[in-house]
Structure formats: C-alpha cells, structure tokens
C-alpha cells in the first residue's frame, strides 16, 4: 500500500500516552504519514486551532485536514472543544472524528448536536482499531474533498 505523503495536517487530541502511541502505531501501520500534531488537553487543542497561548506563533493559514478528538479530556472536555470549533467561522468546517471509549447514548447524541462528522468507539481489540483508523484516514484524507481555502 502506497504511503500517503501530503502536507495535510492531522490533529490528534488525546490525553492518554498509551492511546496516543497506539493511535500513531495504527496510523503508521496504515501508511498514513501526514504531519501529526498531538495536543494533550482541550485547552491546548483550542490554543492550537485559534493560534493562541503556546501556539501563538503558528501559521494560522495551516489548519488540520481532520481532527481525531477524544471526548474525555483534562481542562476542557472534547465536547466543549467541538462546540467552540463549530462556533468559529475559521474552524467550523474542519472535519472532526470523535474517537472515544464511550458508547453512552448521551455522548453520541451531544457530539452530533455539535455537528461531529464521525463517531468511532475505540474497540478493545487493537486489530479492529487499526482497521477503523485505516478506513477513517482513507476516507477523510483521500476520498473526501475538504472545503476550499479562503483566498
């Protein structure tokens, strides 16, 4: 399988280092070699997206092609991050995939309320997880046409 080498940035919002490592492994196993930015809490994720705080020097023109968002995060929850994203014109059209342990109806319903693009429950079985990452990555990074950038 050909490696997908693009300038498309993937933002992974994940507080658990194990999950982060497994996610990176799953991406690699699927030959997804895009630039991967990892933020470890909701506040950091928002700083990155809106170029504030620690990420104030970042080029605001570069925005992630897809965001893999855990819902259970320190400081600012994943649902709050999603809500803030969707409220801002600059970030409202970025595809967000909720990647979480929870299969609570409430979490799923709230995510869709804030216009999540996909909701994927991380399976315990790592083989299944790799397959899920493969399909999602292929879809959002390759098949899907993102919103054209503003001139």
């Amino acid at each position, binding site marked *: 399988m050909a490696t997908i080498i693009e300038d498309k940035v993937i933002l992974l919002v994940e507080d658990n280092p*194990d*999950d982060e490592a*497994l996610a990176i492994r799953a991406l690699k196993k699927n030959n997804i070699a895009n630039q991967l930015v990892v933020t470890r809490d909701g506040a950091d994720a928002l700083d990155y997206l809106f170029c504030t705080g620690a990420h104030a020097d970042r080029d605001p023109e570069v925005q992630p092609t897809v965001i893999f968002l855990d819902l259970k995060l320190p400081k600012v929850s994943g649902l709050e991050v999603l809500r803030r994203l969707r409220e801002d014109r600059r970030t409202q059209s970025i595809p967000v995939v909720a990647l*979480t*342990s929870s299969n609570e109806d409430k979490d799923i319903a709230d995510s869709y309320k804030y216009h999540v693009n996909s909701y994927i429950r*991380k399976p*315990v*079985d*790592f083989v299944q*997880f790799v397959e899920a990452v493969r399909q999602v990555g292929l879809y959002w990074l390759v098949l899907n046409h993102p919103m054209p950038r503003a001139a």
Partner: protein
Amino acid sequence: MGSLSKSRGNLFRKYMVIFVTLIGVASLTSGFIEIYFVYQQNKAAEVLLQQEKAIAAASQIEQFVKETEHQIAWTTHYPWNTSSEAVNQRRLDYLRLLRQVPAITAISQLDPLGMEQLRVSRLAVDVIGSQSDLSRDPKFFLAKTGKTYFSPVYFLKESADPYMTIAMVGAGQLAGVTVAEVNLKFISELVSQIKIGEGGYAYVVDTSGQLIAHPDISLVLRRTDLSSLPQVQAALAASAEPATLGRPQVSIERNLQKNRVLTTYQPIAPLGWTVFLEQPLNEAFAPLYDSILRAILLVIIGLGLSFLASVVMARKMVAPILALQSGAARIGAGMLDQTIRVRTGDELEELGEEFNRMSTQLRASYASLNHQVEEAERAAQDIKQLADSLEHRVAERTAELTATNSELEAFSYSVSHDLRTPLRSIDGFSQALLEDYGEKLDSTGQEYLRRVRAATQRMGQLIDDLLGLSRTTRTKMEVQDVDLSGLVEAVAADLKQRQPERQTEFAIAPGAMVKGDGKLLRIALENLLGNSWKFTAKQPQARIEFGVTQSDGKPAFFIRDNGAGFDMAYADKLFGAFQRLHKTDEFEGSGIGLATVQRVIHRHGGRIWAEGAVGKGATFYFTILV
C-alpha cells in the same frame, strides 16, 4: 337593617289603613245617616211651615175679597129706584164706602135693564143718569143671576195698578146691579205682610199666570207674566182639576230671579187665583246646613280621633310583632344568646317563647356542630400533616434516588471510559509485541500473549454487558404500542443473518401487541432469543418458538427452544447477574443477559419465569403489565 325598618313601616301602615278605614267608614256612615234624618226632618218642618203659611195667606186674601164684597153688599141693602132722593142717598152711601174701603176706586149703580144710573169715582166727578148701556156686559148679566161676579184682573189706561170688578145684584124687585172697581195693589200690600224667615215672601197670580200681587209692586206694575215658571204651570194645571186639590204641594224650583227656592202654592177659592210662597233654599235649609256642618265636623273629629286611636292601636299591635321580627332577625344573624321579650299574654307571647326555645335548641346544635367542625378541622390538620410528611419523605426519597441515579450515571460513564482504556492498552501492546517481537518468543510465549488478548477482550465484553444491564435500569421508559411478534421476527432475522449456515426453525405467533418501551423490549428479546439461538447451536434440528398463553387470566408470552435446557433445581439462579449454569467453554456468555431481561420485564410491571430440563430445552415465560 334597611329592609327591617322598611317592613316595619309596611306592617304599621297596613294596620293604620285598616283601622282608619274601619273607623272612618263607620263615622262617615253615621254622619251621613245623621245628615239624612236631619234633612228629612228639616224639610218636613219647612214644608209644614210653608203649607200653613200658604193656607193662611190664601185665607187672608180671601178674607180681604170677602170683606170688600161684604162692604159693597152693605150699600145694596136699601131698595133701589130712580127717584132723586134714592139716587142721592145711594150716592152718599157710595161716598161713605169709598172712604171706608180704600181698595175700591169707583162704584156704579146699574138699573135692572143694565143702564148706568150712578157712578161715583175717586178719580172723576160723580155722574148721575149717564144711561150707559151695560146690559150685555158680563158684570151685569152674570151678577143678575144673583151670584157675586168677580171679573178677571185688568189694567186701566190711567193707572198702572191691577184692577178687578166686583158686581152684585141689589135688594128688592127693582134691584139693579152694583158694580165696584177694586184696586188690587192692596192685595200686594197684604201679601207683603206675609214673611217666611228673612227672605221668604208670598205673591199672587191670576188664572192666566199674570202676577197680581207681589211685595215688590214694581213687578206687578210691569205686568209680569209668570206662566213660564214650572211651579206656576203646575198650580194652574191643578186648579183646572179641582179634584187633585188637597194639601199644598211643596217643591224646590227656580224663581223669577233664577234662584233656587223652596216653594208652595194655595188656590184662592172663589177667584181662581193662586197664592205662592217661596223661600230661598239656602235660607229654608239653613238649619239643615248647620246640621250638615255639625255632622261633617263630627265626622272629621271622629276621623282624627280614629287616626290617633289607630296609631296607638297599630303601634300596640305592631310592637310585639316587631320585637318578634327583630328577635328572629337576631337569631337569623347568629346571635343565639338573645331572648325575645313579648309580654302580650296572647299567641304572640307564645310565638316569642317558641322562638326562644328554637334559639336555645339552635345554640345547642351550633355548639355540637362547632365541636364536630373543630374535630373535622383537627382531622384535616392531621391529614395535612401526614400528607406533608409523606410529601417530605417522597421528596427526600426522590432526592436520594436522583442522587443515586446520578452517581450511577457517573459510575457508568466512568466504567465506559476508564475501565476500557487500560484494556485497550493491554490488548494493543500485546498485539504490538506479537507483531514486532513475535519471532523472539517461542510458541508458548506467543500463546500467552494471545491468552492475554482474549482475556482482555472478554473483559471488554463483560464491561459492555454490565453497562447494558445498568442502562436497562437507568433509561427513561417511553411507553407506546409495541408489536412484540414483529420484534421477534426482526431479532430472528438478525440472528439468521449473523450465522446463515445454521438451520434453525422459527415459529412465531403473529399479532402479539403490548404497551411498553420498544427499545427495552428489543433488548430483552435479543437476550432471550440469543440464548435460545446459542443453546440450540448443537441441536441438529433446532427449533425456536414464540407464542402467547394464559397465566392467572393474563396473557403470558413465551419463548421455547429444544436446546440444552437446564436443571429446574437451579431455576431460581437463572436471573441473577453473573450466574451461569454452563461452562464457558461449553457455551460462551457473561451471565448478565437474563438479569437484563428480568430487569426489563420488571420495569414493565411483569413477571418472568422459566421451565426446562437438561437436554430437553427451555421455555421462558413473561408477562407485560404496563
């Protein structure tokens, strides 16, 4: 109190009206009766007086005429002849007569042949032997029959007074006729002497209704004709029929001056004249009017006294009634300790006593009623306190339940996230070990890692099943019509699709409808049918049946299979969580499925039970009573 005073006025007024009417009518009646009798008596007296006066007047006039006649007759006593001595003697007699009788104005002697031989007059020179022929004059030939002749009244050219001629035959063979002219104004003088009271007077009319004597002589001189007056007409008509003459008739008529008068008449027999007497009505009846006035005064005084008496009477009658009324009103207003004091000694006093007794009884009733009301209020208070404490307890319980529920919610959420996360790490890194370092491990090491992964995944499944069980308790019920048969069909189709290689016969009774939560019921059916599916896996001719039967008169649904079955000795352990009757390697499962089913059925108010035997299949019954 406005209506009270108003009704007091009514009763009082009613009594007043009744009393005043009674006494008023009585005194008016007696007054009128009095007036009537006074009137009758008065009138009778007046009539009698007038009648007598009239008779007296007539006889006076008659007397005057007779006297005059007698005086004339006296001159005729001496025999008459035409000798100058005799004529002279007669002339002297006549002169003496004129002196003695002022009413005679002229007198003449006719010879037996009706020739005037002598005439003596107050107004002219005496004439002797004028020989005027009066033989055809009625005064001669009527007087010649021997009866005194009275001529009709006449008026002379030279005088305004009325006159009358009286002629009579003289004594002896050669007796002639003496003719005298009588001035009737003397009758007027006579008549003016007649008075009745102040304004009453008499007058005389002749046979034709001509006035010949009246106190006001000018009326006579003007030759007044009274024949148009009804009383005169009546008198003339009566004199034409002498049979009707009797006591003079008295009547009330209008006189010449158009005044109302009480009048009567009496004929003067030999002359055919009529004397009238009249008296102004108000004068005639003056005593009557006095009487009437007196009677009216008495009636008025009577009415006034009766009014006063009725006021007193009505007050006296109304007072106890008012006392009763105000007492009854006080009782009505709830002032039951008031008593009514009426001391009339009659039925009213009894009525007052009745009221007092009634108010006493009412007071007693009220007291008992008040007591009952107080008791009822106390009971209501107790009930309210109970309800309040119950409400309080319910609120406490609800708060506790809410707290418990939210704790459970947080716990479930935590389990859902946090318990799975390390499992994922274990599984993920075990897989990474196998992939990256597999060649460095022998087959036993690799087998161990696989076992770690299998256990991890089973743990994940257990967590999911536990969450499912807790969700059946936590989720809110949404009750609607549920087609149970349809749900069974759908779940069966799912199972067949998952393992299309299996040959399993489903017998599903159609049309089983219940009220319930479709989602929860589907979870229950998934578990029950999943069990049947699982435990018939080793059956060559697997059969799963869904149907409806009766239990205690209620529909009981059942799912029956011909699978592995179970030992009825452990039937009570079937529905406990983590209770398994089969070894894991025999039939996989967490032991949570039937616990979940039981919770769903309990939440629907139903009951679940099972029948079965080892190797002979199992039947699960349940009822739904939402």
